[in-house]
């Protein structure tokens, strides 16, 4: 049992952490300057991201599947039914969440910080770092939300990963698969572990927040 479950847990963590990390780096890097600048298309870009935030994972799975399949534009890379495909799908699901929440969370305060940094002589990179540093608690909460989305996601990873035992099977697809077979005991064990991981991540974040405050 343990030999079957451990790789599933390990792969789940790798895929979720990696996709959350990539989505956070891209999402936050784009959101900080976006929250400061005012331009014509800003409202529309934000609206599109809000729509993408609530995009059904199976639809994202379908899009990534088509792009990575043999006939797709990235078909030559043979990424379909690999953990890479799962990371791509999850990254695309998490990125709009991180981006939109960061923009709405920083929109007021980032302009204030930017002005104060600028009059003290800060350059663009220093302003960027100051905003992230000042808003680290909000950003940390947003990253946790993104991680929650990634680790609990089942539709997209099932489609692009294929739920192949020992290769692309993660905790959520394991639960879905075992439930389908009627093996509720295994499904509940993995479900409990999933919940426990979320508890650990949240506790760590709260400890960090408490320390910082």
């Amino acid at each position, binding site marked *: 049992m343990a030999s079957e479950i451990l790789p599933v847990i390990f792969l789940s963590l790798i895929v979720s952490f990696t996709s959350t990390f990539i989505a956070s780096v891209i999402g936050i890097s784009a959101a900080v300057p976006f929250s400061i600048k005012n331009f014509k298309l800003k409202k529309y870009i934000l609206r599109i991201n809000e729509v993408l935030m609530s995009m059904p994972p199976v639809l994202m799975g379908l899009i990534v599947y088509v792009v990575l399949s043999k006939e797709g534009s990235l078909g030559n890379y043979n990424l379909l039914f690999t953990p890479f495909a799962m990371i791509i799908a999850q990254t695309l699901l998490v990125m709009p969440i991180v981006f939109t929440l960061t923009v709405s969370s920083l929109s007021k305060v980032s302009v204030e*910080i930017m002005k104060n940094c600028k009059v003290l*002589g800060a350059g663009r990179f220093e302003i960027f770092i100051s905003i992230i540093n000042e808003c680290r608690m909000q950003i940390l909460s947003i990253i946790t939300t993104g991680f929650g989305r990634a680790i609990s996601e089942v539709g997209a990873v099932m489609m692009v990963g294929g739920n192949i035992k020992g290769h692309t099977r993660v905790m959520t697809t394991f639960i879905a698969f075992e439930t389908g077979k009627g093996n509720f005991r295994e499904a509940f064990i993995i479900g409990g572990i999933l919940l426990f991981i979320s508890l650990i991540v949240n506790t760590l974040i709260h400890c960090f927040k408490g320390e910082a405050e």
Partner: protein
Amino acid sequence: MSVRICNIQKTYNSKRVLDIENYHFKENYIYVIRGKNGEGKSTLLNIIAGIEKPDYGEVLYDFKTDCLRYDISMMLQKPYLFNTTVYENIIMGLKYRKINKNEIDKRLKRYCSYFKMGELMNKNAKKLSGGESQRVALLRSAILESKLMLLDEPTSSMDYENTLMAEKLILDMKNKGSTIIMVTHDMSQAKRIGDKIILLEDGRINYD
């Protein structure tokens, strides 16, 4: 540093808040800008500082269209203090300028002597009162010893004693060669320290 305003116009929500044809802020003077709320005082300072752009016109610094960002420092009307110690807040601009530790210590000693900052230095800046925050923001700006210092109501929340110390600090900055442009609603303060008093009305300079 001298500052020349050339045909500056700024409009917010179809209301013209600034419309200055030409004005020259001479080097090493203290200019005090007065005016009612919403007459464009802060907007003028923000444009000079480069944190806002005018709709039309330009600002010349020593007769050039741009200047080094280290040449100007500003204390905003509602200064944002960073979520760290008072000490870190005061030296933040010096860190941006890559000033060495010895020089930082020297300047700290010199400028913190104006206000009783001793017990405040290790306190989190977010936990300060309004007057204390203004003292930190003023010191943070003054310690940079920039050629042009812009102050937007720097003493509005300070008590009388600290206001006098702030005025002494501003006068000393002028004596060191800085040009100072400040906004205040306090006429007696304007008379005490201003070399020139400007009245902004409907976005225009009406009295000099």
